């Protein structure tokens, strides 16, 4: 039996019944990483020794009857999620040697739940990119076809879960960085509602847009992980002080009467024919289960990519101002003045795409451009948000493709706007603070995974999980 193929719930069951031990499970994953990482490039750091140490400790606790919800489940985190004592690079030379002295809230929660950290995952440097070709540590390859990209920015996370190199992973999503790679790699990816998951210890890129989200193989696993990481955190002032439900209670194969909206703007030009066909098939499946599908209109979404681009660049240029070579990370040598130290450190430590984003962001918020770019984008954001609010008055869930085209070939990273276009269907959920999930739905003629996106009302992850689970069970 290949243990790396087990879902979280299957692995937990087998550990509980003593069919397998935690250390056997963990070693299977370490072996898989050893075999595949050279080809896929999903991991930047592998925590082999910590895994070997933690396995027996957790097994003993479990054998003594302790209740540990994720005991022994091997997982991995995108390298922009802070891990105490474990190298956290954000895929940048700037942080190539950074060993944090504190933990992100999500890692602390997962540790307390008994999950075992296999390692840290490759990504686009400082989350800037949609193909995972912008990493200081080299690109990530799509496990379905190594000549194609895994998507980004959390390409390593999606590729690792798809190639059975982690039972689940966490990434962060500012415009689709969890959902787009999940779609490209054929796995389940959730962007929770803004505020549901603590961002404490998430290295900031676009603070008003990004959320940490799980990447899993099944919808059930997604609900299990969400239970472990959701909740209010006083350390994050944008964390929502609400009580969240048990998401596994929504794993019901019943969506009778669910009202699903199909935005007509999402199925216009530029959509790959087979993805459109898959979407139509999905609608038939939902209708056969008793859901009601109706066409809706979200006219402002055509402005979502430009608004996102301005807001994210502006926030990134501000967030990345902290890297100065003084307190941690890369520091340029032979600098005589403080100003020279700042400039040389930042110019040598950041990759070109990151520097271009900082420059653009600073330009958008500069005196002459503030109103015409930045303020304009914030106004557009309000219009997009209101569009969705209106749509959700009459429906429960919105259905769209996750991406307009399946995974593209490597080597197209140079055009930033073109790159952003693969997030055209995912970005609005970030601007409007909604929750959204990408679930796999077959493959195209090249054998590449096709993804389906469901968007939900704020804090209504339960309905998303119910709809996604029912779909998964009936396809």
């Amino acid at each position, binding site marked *: 039996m290949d243990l790396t193929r087990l879902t979280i719930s299957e692995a937990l069951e087998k550990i509980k019944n003593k069919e397998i031990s935690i250390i056997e499970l963990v070693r299977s994953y370490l072996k898989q990483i050893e075999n595949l990482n050279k080809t896929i490039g999903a991991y930047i750091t592998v925590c082999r020794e910590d895994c070997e140490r933690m396995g027996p400790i957790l097994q003993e606790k479990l054998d003594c009857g302790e209740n540990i919800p994720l005991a022994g489940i091997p997982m991995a985190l995108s390298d922009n999620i802070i891990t105490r004592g474990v190298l956290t690079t954000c895929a940048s030379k700037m942080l190539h040697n950074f060993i944090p002295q504190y933990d992100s809230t999500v890692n602390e929660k997962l540790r307390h739940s008994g999950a075992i950290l296999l390692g840290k995952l490759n990504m686009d440097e400082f989350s800037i990119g949609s193909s995972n070709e912008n990493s200081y540590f080299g690109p990530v390859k799509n496990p379905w076809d190594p000549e194609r990209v895994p998507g980004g920015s959390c390409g390593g996370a999606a590729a690792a879960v798809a190639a059975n190199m982690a039972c689940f992973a966490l990434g962060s999503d500012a415009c689709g960085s969890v959902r787009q790679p999940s779609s490209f790699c054929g796995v389940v990816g959730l962007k929770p509602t803004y505020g549901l998951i603590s961002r404490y210890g998430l290295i900031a890129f676009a603070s008003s847009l990004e959320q940490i989200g799980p990447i899993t193989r099944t919808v059930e696993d997604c609900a299990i992980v969400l239970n472990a990481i959701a909740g209010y955190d006083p350390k994050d002032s944008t964390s929502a002080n609400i009580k969240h439900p048990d998401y596994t209670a929504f794993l019901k194969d019943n969506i009778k009467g669910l009202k699903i909206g199909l935005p007509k703007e999402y199925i216009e030009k530029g959509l790959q024919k087979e993805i459109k066909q898959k979407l139509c098939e999905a609608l038939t499946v939902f209708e056969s289960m008793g859901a009601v599908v109706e066409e809706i209109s979200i006219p402002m979404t055509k402005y979502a990519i430009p608004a996102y681009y301005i807001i994210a660049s502006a926030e990134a240029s501000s967030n990345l101002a902290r890297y100065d070579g003084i307190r941690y990370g890369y520091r340029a040598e032979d600098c005589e003045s403080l100003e020279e130290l700042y*400039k040389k450190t930042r110019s040598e430590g950041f990759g070109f795409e990151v520097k271009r984003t900082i420059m653009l962001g600073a330009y958008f918020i500069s005196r002459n451009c503030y109103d015409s770019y930045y303020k304009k984008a914030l106004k557009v954001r309000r219009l997009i948000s209101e569009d969705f609010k209106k749509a959700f008055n009459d429906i429960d869930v919105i259905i769209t493709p996750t991406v307009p085209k399946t995974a593209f070939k490597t080597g197209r990273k140079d055009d930033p706007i073109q790159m952003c276009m693969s997030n055209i269907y995912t970005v609005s959920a970030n601007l409007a603070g909604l929750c959204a999930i990408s679930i796999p739905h077959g493959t195209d003629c090249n054998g590449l995974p096709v993804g389906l996106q469901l968007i939900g009302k704020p804090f209504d992850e339960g309905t998303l999980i119910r709809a996604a689970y029912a779909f998964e069970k009936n396809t």
Partner: protein
Amino acid sequence: MKNQQDIKHIANLVNLSFSDSEVQKLIKDIKKVSQYLMDKLSCLDTENIEPMEHIFHTANIFRGDYSTDSLDREGLLKNAPVKENGYFAVPRIMDEN
């Protein structure tokens, strides 16, 4: 941002420096991106729309005014590229006089 001087001005504000070939590439890229954004957004009337900075709240949230444990000083200094007598070290910022 149309010319070399504009690029150098912004680069100076964000503490970055670029080679001549990078400056040329930035001029091209930034021109292309900003033109695209302007083309897309300028036709949309947003006259009386309130900007939306954030999803939920725009005010700061403060914690109570009490002391708590902070991170360990020695631990934090472990990541410092250069340190001296328990402090982060920087190049001299004042002249000797």
